[in-house]
């Protein structure tokens, strides 16, 4: 499993990574591998506000549909429209081109409360 050491994670396998004034949100390498081929990503609306832990979208793989849970409270400032034409970007490059949304945090302190790379690696190993 690949881990982005700059990102922080929650146990449901979403990550947040600081990118200037916003946070990039996506799913971990462990998650994309467990899901298998991703064939559709339901993206949130730009401008919508989500609380930490709230469902903000759906990742659909060949096997199943999985809800996405916001790792950090905030307002969506951008979504990755490239996933519309090529959802498998999440499989190929989950921390890079396969990002899902960008969020302006309303409680930036929540970031520190997420699992760091080492703690997430341990958590994901339990699956």
């Amino acid at each position, binding site marked *: 499993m690949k881990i982005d050491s700059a990102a922080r994670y929650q146990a449901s396998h979403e990550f947040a990574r600081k990118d200037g004034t916003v946070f990039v949100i996506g799913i971990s390498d462990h998650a994309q591998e467990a899901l*298998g*081929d991703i*064939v*559709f990503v*339901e993206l949130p609306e730009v401008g919508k506000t989500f609380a930490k832990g709230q469902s903000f979208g*759906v990742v*659909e793989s*060949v096997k199943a*549909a999985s809800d996405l849970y916001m790792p950090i409270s905030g307002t969506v400032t951008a979504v990755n429209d490239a996933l519309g034409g090529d959802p*498998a970007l999440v499989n190929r490059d989950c921390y890079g081109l396969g990002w899902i949304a960008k969020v302006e945090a309303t409680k930036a302190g929540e970031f520190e409360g997420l699992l760091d790379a080492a703690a997430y690696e341990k958590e994901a190993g339990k699956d």
Partner: protein
Amino acid sequence: MAPFAGYDMPISYPTGAVEEHNICRRGVGLFDIDHMGQLIVSGPDADAFVSHTVSGAVLDMKDGDARYSLLLDDKGLVLDDLFVYRLPGRWWIVVNASNLETDVEWFTLRAREWKGTVKVEDVSEATYMIAVQGPRALELLDLMGTPKASSCPRFTSGEIVIQGTKNLFGRTGYTGEDGGELFFPAQDALGLWEGFIKAGETHGIEVKAIGLAARDSLRFEAGMPLHGHEISPSINALEAGFKWACDFSKPDFVGKKALEAIAAAGVSRKLVGIEITGGVPREGYDVVSPSGEKIGTCVAGMFCPTTKKYAANAFVEPQFARPGTEVAVMAHGKPKSGVVVKRPLYLPAYRR
């Protein structure tokens, strides 16, 4: 891996489900389908018995012919779908894994009424089954087998020797591609499987093992039913669109009377294909009219790797069954707009 009818079956191999699907559409897909069951029906009255027991015409078949048929109950409900092969002096019937026991019981019970003139044997344990499917499947089979598989016309069978193993080869399949299905003694399975992979490497033909997920998407695009989805003991042959697999000119077959009554009254629902945008339709999702009222249910649905559409098979009220009808599928509580489309979504090789 997933448990399936008592077997541990791979959902996908490391290749991945979508790529496996694509390989079968451009090269060769290998399918380890030993879970399928095989029966032999023989005896002086075997012809009349098979003709009475399955839905389709069989008495016009010549030795070697292979034909799709249904196993119905007295209500016209679909117990299983089958491939019926006529071989010299016997019938070779291929059934679904999950129905093997039921089917064997069904055939055996009915055979008893024929007072010893019909014999039914379950030879599934001793028989291995591999499918070799794809636009280059016959090329691969021709390189390995004698006589050439390609000399066997579509929907016929013949004996082919591969690596010293005698196979019953049927030019049939469940993917919409050309190729065939092989039946041979179980002890030769690993050798043949590895032989196909190796021959592919030697001759520059892309050959890969295909898991259950891609087997499902391949058959789905090609319009072939999967037991428990498009057909089941709670679905009758006519609403599932299988009039073509029922020979109403036969004096009788199990389910014929019931189907004639259903045909006269009109079906209450029809199997249709639906393409949607903005989500993946899945089994169990409701189909609704543009005004939001429930008109049916999806029995299968997925992303189709070849047509690149999100599509479902669904049973809907007949007035919504015409291709072009606007409908919606409820996914995660939201209506996703869709349209009824003609099936199959992908024209099988044998119809091209």
